[in-house]
């Protein structure tokens, strides 16, 4: 992961721990949002709001919906920032 993505990943990790009380150990790029992190579509709304506060980009819910893993989320944000 390049530096930009790494920075985004670290911010995302902190948000995930805050919002979902997840264990540090399970938050890896390969983690699937729904199956591994138990983040459903209702949760995703709040996750997107907090991510946008940290990484100031224009991103629509539809673009965000395409993300399956944490790595996908980081990629999407990195591309748009």
């Amino acid at each position, binding site marked *: 992961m390049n530096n930009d993505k790494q920075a985004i990943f670290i911010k995302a990790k902190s948000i995930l721990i805050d919002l*979902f009380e997840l264990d540090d150990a399970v938050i890896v790029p390969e983690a699937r949002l729904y199956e591994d992190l138990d983040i459903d579509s*209702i*949760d995703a709304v*709040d996750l997107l709001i907090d991510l946008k506060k940290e990484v100031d980009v224009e991103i629509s819910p539809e673009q965000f919906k395409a993300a399956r893993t944490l790595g996908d989320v980081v990629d999407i944000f990195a591309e748009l920032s």
Partner: protein
Amino acid sequence: MLIRLRRVWAVIAAAISYTTFGIGALLLGLVFRLIDWLPLSLTKKQRWIRHCIHISCLSFINLMRFLGLLTYQLSVTSTDKVKESGCIVVANHPSLIDAVFILAANKNISCIVKGALWNNFFTSAVVKLAGYIPNDSKDFIEIAVEKLRMGDSILIFPEGTRNTYNEQLDFRRGAANIAVVANAPILPVLITSNPRALQKGEKWYSIPDGGSHFSIQSGDLLNLTSCIDVTRPRTVQYRHLTRYLKKHYLAWLANTSCDKPKHEINIPNQVI
């Protein structure tokens, strides 16, 4: 011989019940379409329709009792009697007819229903005209919250489907999602049957010998602030509230089985 006759009767009685339910639902659908056509306010029409559903459900469980399929004890505070308007009724889900019992105890309540019922030939007219909410609609939380704000109460089964044993209580977060966003109180209802009947996966005609006794009771109204820390992020509240409800039900079940009179507790036969 007597046992065989009883079993045959149970199957016949079950067939009568299912048929009555199907025909009843169709007839209700027709009646509701007629009511819907009347030039009355939406609220009034919906209240009539829900009242009809209530009467029908009460009649249906009485029919099942008359046919010897079950006995029941309903001790549910109707949502009309709950001071705060707009509460969420949650219940565990052991049997096929759980919703019927709760509707028999409430004159005016909305329900979160399985998406499949929305398009089912027998139930679609009823669920749509009664102002129920399909759980696969992507706005179902918003719709539910809005109804609660208008004073409607809503029934939801947090397990989402029938459990396979009482303590399973695999509560999903749907009920908590709605409760937290709407800041609405929760009226918990406990449903138990002895022996367990009309379970998931069983054949339709599989009725316990001698029928089953259903107990449906409501507990104290739960206000969010007394269950969880509402200053935490919403997503955390969803999870805490769901866990709280599961613990609440586990304790409730444990207390209830303590109340079982001795002759109802199965004691294995002593083999000499």
